[in-house]
């Protein structure tokens, strides 16, 4: 796998891209690029069509970028690149945030306007209703199914031996 920098004119959107990119989301991507950099290369197929990264491509064009980093996935068949394009989006959206951990993280970010990206700084709902017992501070004992090792984790998944 290699990253190449190519001219934006050399790549093109896939006409049947099923993912919606709203104007608001493009503005958010542009702000993310300005604040943190262009950190995620665009995956393209052998004909220069984008497999994943349509939103970043539109944002880069609007920001006046002449070149963008790309990864060429030339080995995929036509059907595979179309399937992977959907699967890539699906797998990133199929799970959400742990709202407790999210709230902790957001509370420590002061320099960046996280609401702009769609985060709500205060939880609108009480997550405790999703637990039968509010045991989130518990330490849980885990026994590894593979080697039988016994260890402990907290509710965030941090391993405590």
């Amino acid at each position, binding site marked *: *796998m290699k*990253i190449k920098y190519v001219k934006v004119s050399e790549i093109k959107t896939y006409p*049947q891209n*099923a993912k*919606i990119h*709203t104007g608001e*989301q493009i503005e*958010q*991507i542009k702000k*993310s690029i300005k*604040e*943190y*950099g262009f*950190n*995620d290369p665009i995956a393209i197929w052998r004909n220069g069509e984008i497999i994943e990264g349509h*939103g970043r491509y539109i944002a880069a064009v609007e920001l006046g970028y002449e070149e963008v980093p790309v*990864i060429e996935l030339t080995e*995929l068949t036509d*059907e*595979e690149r*179309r*399937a*992977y394009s*959907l*699967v*890539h*989006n*699906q*797998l*990133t*959206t199929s*799970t*959400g*945030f*742990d*709202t407790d*951990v999210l709230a*902790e*993280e*957001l509370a*420590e970010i*002061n*320099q*960046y306007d996280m609401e702009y*990206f*769609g*985060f709500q700084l205060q939880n*609108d*709902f009480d997550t405790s209703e*999703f637990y039968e017992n509010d045991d989130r501070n518990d330490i*849980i004992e*885990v026994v*590894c199914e*593979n*080697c039988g*090792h016994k260890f402990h*984790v907290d509710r*965030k*998944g941090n*391993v405590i031996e």
Partner: protein
Amino acid sequence: MELKIEYLSKEELRPYANNAKIHTGEQVEQIKKSIEEFGFNDPIAVWHDNEVIEGHGRLLAVMEMDDIKEVPIIRLDELTDEQRRAYMLVHNKLTMNTGYNFTILQEELETIFSVDMVKYGFIKDALDDIEDIDNILSDNEIQKPEKQDKKMMVLCPCCGKLVEVA
């Protein structure tokens, strides 16, 4: 900052301790399947000391795949601590902020035969089922955590295998 791919042994990568993104056992299985079918196509972004910025799900997946020893990574060392923590959240959030055009999605799904898209959570004929559309549309709203989302996956500190926390 020019992006570059480096290959690292998967054991050298360290998850971020306060990663807010949930990775269920089901999702990790889907990521494994995606890697098997399409390859490892999306490098993991890491910060200082090989701490993961984005790609926790992919890391959990490869830890369970014996034939994958090394993974492609991109170093984002120039970010400050606050930047990498903000970017981690923003990266995940921005992909969740928009959904699908269901007409195009349906057309695409109808022309994919060699890949079992249902395994990845796609519902074929979603347009015929109003309830499913409601479910999919509501994904664009704030996601309420479901109980089943709370099944955590952790790595055994002894053998490195992925273990589900009850």
